[in-house]
């Protein structure tokens, strides 16, 4: 009976075909370094889920941001766990994206015909760093406030357009409630949507091109 239901569904959705293309594709004999991309994807999923959970209690307003996080840490069951995973997962994701990039670079895996995979990866790296930068402000403690003050000031040192970039980042000339709200919005909507879309393209290209093998002596 269960088998009949599954067959019925599969005939209409073609799940077996998707499964075969995604998971049963041929790959060269590779090593553990080739799992870094999957590890990054897994970390992105963890960040998405824990992040969605954090928005249940977090309030992106200077009046309540710090207190709402204190509440998550001390008042809500397992709040410490969910925030802890989001906190450590963020650092790990930046780390894994970076060593994934190093592996691709040193093994020459970015070359023809995989240039587009590399280019989407570049944007994914920048978006991940952007996630780190915007997420860092959200606790609204001293460290967050001054790190963002310094970070946006650095952007402000760019010649000619520095001043306007700094004001765009801050939403005005000072770090304020506007800054917190726009960093929150960018952190939970703009960057995640960009990353999800680019991961889709990145994975499509990985499946379409196949992955490169480990370079041999003389390659």
């Amino acid at each position, binding site marked *: 009976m269960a088998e009949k239901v599954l067959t019925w569904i599969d005939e209409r959705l073609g799940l077996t075909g998707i499964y075969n293309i995604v998971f049963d594709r041929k790959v060269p004999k590779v090593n553990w370094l080739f799992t870094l991309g999957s590890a990054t994807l897994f970390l992105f999923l963890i960040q998405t889920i824990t992040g969605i959970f954090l928005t249940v209690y977090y309030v992106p307003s200077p009046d309540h941001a710090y*207190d709402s996080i204190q509440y998550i840490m001390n008042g*809500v069951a*397992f709040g410490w766990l969910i925030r802890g995973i989001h906190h450590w997962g963020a650092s790990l994701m930046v780390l894994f994206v970076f060593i994934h990039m190093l592996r691709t670079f040193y093994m020459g895996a970015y070359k023809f015909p995989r240039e587009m995979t590399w280019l989407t990866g570049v944007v994914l790296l920048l978006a991940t760093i952007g996630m780190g930068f915007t997420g860092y402000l959200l606790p609204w403690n001293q460290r967050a406030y001054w790190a963002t003050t310094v970070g946006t000031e650095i952007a402000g040192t760019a010649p000619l357009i520095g001043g306007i970039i700094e004001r765009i980042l801050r939403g005005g000339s000072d770090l304020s409630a506007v800054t917190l709200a726009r960093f929150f919005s960018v952190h939970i909507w703009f960057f995640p949507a960009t990353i999800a879309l680019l991961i889709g393209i990145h994975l499509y290209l990985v499946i379409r091109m196949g992955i490169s093998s480990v370079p041999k002596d003389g390659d």
Partner: protein
Amino acid sequence: MNDSENVQRRDFVKIVLAFLGTIMGAVIAIPAIGYLLSPATKVQSKEAWIPAGPMENYPIGTPTLFSYTRSTINGWEKTTNSYGAYIVRTTEADVKAFSNMCTHLSCRVNWKNELAEYICPCHDGHFDVEGKVTAGPPPAPLYPYETKVEEGVLYIHHMEG
């Protein structure tokens, strides 16, 4: 070999996978559900005995206003409300307490010595020293507090709602 009653390799793998999968699912699901539901499990006390100071503070026969505040904490937000009670010692030992909230539209009533009545400033409601309505629109007498005296200190019983 296949007809033996021993567990086959494939079945063993299936059982172990189901077992481990259940444990892993529970490890993920329990914190997630607990996180979402935990504020609903906290019930704040809506009543308390408020100490109103020694009995000597209140003159016999004259209602005296006693003010106090109560705080409620909901998540990251603390709300403080202030309340007022008129305390009347009718005799040396007997004491009564009334909320100063008018039963009409919740304005604060004031004791007027010259009239020997509580007057509501909003719609001219009048209550006598016992809290009963004597004139005006209020539909019910002033809310009476339960009182108790312990070691010379007066307590009034605060209840919300």
